[in-house]
């Protein structure tokens, strides 16, 4: 187990280095480099820009700049926001919880619905339900998340008046039911795509498990179909889903960014867009790296969990 863990940890660190190189390249692709926003400032003379360039060490070779930047990342010095001067990590920290709440809720919804649809599709293969689920999943994968959000607001807020159109809580209220009330629509919207992906994978995994020898053995012993499904099939089918949950993280984050914009949800996605609007590059860069680190961490956790429950993997 520890060998597997160590191996996996080293892989993650290598990947983290590659991710940081990509991020650094993006930063330097910006025209004019990290000082681009000063180019338009009439109060900045050419000398000022040159002085700043030397001061920030931007005239050094790129690889030294990279090492310097990466070392500061490791030490937790992610720079300061251009907007209010607070540290980038603190700014991200203020918005992290809202995003995790939205992502967590919608993932839980997607797993519950997707698992059920997938299993039912596999046990009732080629039925009307299975057919509708297959076509429905493909359509759901094709609907732009923001459009689904707009339609949701139109129907459930403007026409029916059931849920609020946005924000995380009502100002002056902020009780738990109020939070939940605000959470319903955005998390449903965000979960749609993932219900589709999850149910398709779950269907394949269930079919796979159903064709295994241990299912035949159980049937031969006279175990009821229901018991076979619950005791033997579902557990085995859910195993690969743990890896899938890790793999889906980037697309959940992408969806969260769009959903947060439509529902004015005060999370990382909104922060990212606001910072882009203000040309607040330290925060933009910080979020870019942070989101990739979150994805790597998620994959690492998924691998550890699956190795804990499935001895075949950690012993292989």
């Amino acid at each position, binding site marked *: 187990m520890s060998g597997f863990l160590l191996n996996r940890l080293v892989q993650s660190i290598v*990947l983290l280095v*590659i991710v940081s190189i990509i991020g650094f390249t*993006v930063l330097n692709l910006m025209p004019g480099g990290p000082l681009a926003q000063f180019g338009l400032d009439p109060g900045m003379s050419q000398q000022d820009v040159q002085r700043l360039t030397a001061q920030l060490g931007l005239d050094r070779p790129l690889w030294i700049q990279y090492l310097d930047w990466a070392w500061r990342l490791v030490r937790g010095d992610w720079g300061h926001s251009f907007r209010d001067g607070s540290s980038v990590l603190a700014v991200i920290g203020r918005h992290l919880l809202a995003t995790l709440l939205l992502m967590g809720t919608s993932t839980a919804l997607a797993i519950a619905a997707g698992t059920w649809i997938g299993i039912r599709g596999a046990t009732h293969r080629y039925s009307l339900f299975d057919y509708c689920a297959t076509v429905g999943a493909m359509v759901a994968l094709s609907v732009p998340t923001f459009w689904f959000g707009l339609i949701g*607001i139109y129907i459930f807020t403007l026409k029916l008046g059931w849920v609020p159109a946005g924000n995380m809580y009502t100002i002056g209220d902020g009780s738990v039911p109020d939070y939940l009330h605000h959470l319903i629509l955005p998390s449903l919207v965000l979960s749609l795509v993932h219900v589709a992906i999850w149910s398709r994978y779950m269907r394949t995994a269930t079919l796979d498990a159903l064709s295994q020898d241990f299912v035949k053995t159980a049937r031969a012993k006279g175990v009821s179909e229901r018991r076979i499904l619950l005791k033997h099939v579902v557990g085995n089918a859910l195993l690969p889903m743990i890896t899938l949950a890790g793999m889906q993280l980037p*697309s959940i984050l992408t969806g969260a960014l769009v959903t947060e914009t439509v529902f004015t949800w005060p999370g990382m996605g909104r922060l990212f867009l606001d910072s882009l609007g203000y040309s607040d590059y330290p925060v933009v860069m910080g979020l870019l790296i942070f*989101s990739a680190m979150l994805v790597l961490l998620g994959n690492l956790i998924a691998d550890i969990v699956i190795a804990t429950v499935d001895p075949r993997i950690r012993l292989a």
Partner: protein
Amino acid sequence: MTTIVAHAAPTRWWHSRAVNRFMRHHLALLGIAMITLLVLACAIGPYALPYDSLHIDLRARFAPPLAGNHYLGTDPLGRDLAVRLLMAGRVSLAVGFSAMLLSTLIGTLVGVTAGYRGGWIGAALMRTVDGFLSYPSIFLVLALAATLRPNPVMITVIIAVTSWMETARIVEAEVRSLREREFVQAARMVGLSRAHIMFREILPNAMGPIIVAASLAVARAILLEAYISFLGYGIQPPLPSWGNMLNGAQQYLASAPWLAIIPGAAITIAVTSFNFIGDGLRDALDVRNDNF
């Protein structure tokens, strides 16, 4: 001998098993039909409609669909929505299609090189693929689009350089399995150059998965363009795209819901069609994929 060859039934590509299987895939045929209709409408439609996509008519602001000659209504500036939708379709479909071509090209080059060369070159390339895949694509696309000049060509390039990784992975796996096959060993023994073996001998045998990935890549590219244009960092007005038509539609959701509903429906139809086609191609070309 010659007579036998002459009389042998010619096997044309449209008699092949793959085409046969594709034709039995109803959803894929539906997808092809819808895309054909959409492309024709976008190509011809704007000439048939009596309005220009940039013509502003403030007296006709917020006309609902089917009001007068505005079949799909008008926007806050009184521009005809139908003609704008079709002009936007040209941009969105062109961006989606070109981004697919470019990303498939990059992905194939990387995948073939990594798969055939293997060793540290292959490892480095594939870890780069993993690195790119660790980023939520929209964060990367937005950061690039916000700083580089957002014209349609640049948007296409940005989408392509952030979505070639899936193709690279598929091609790499395929090429790695083909590398040790007899025909490749034969080619090596004959002394063919590495580039010739990679691209003339191996690549044609990996075309099935590439085509499937490409059809799904169009769908993804159209969606990605819609996302960033909706957020204001993609195609810039006055040039319409399906995504930027939705930018600002939210504030008129109560008074003019068609502004949000119609362009979104167009995106959904186009993306669904390409996904259907991709699904049909996967069945027809017998590409094993764990996704579905």
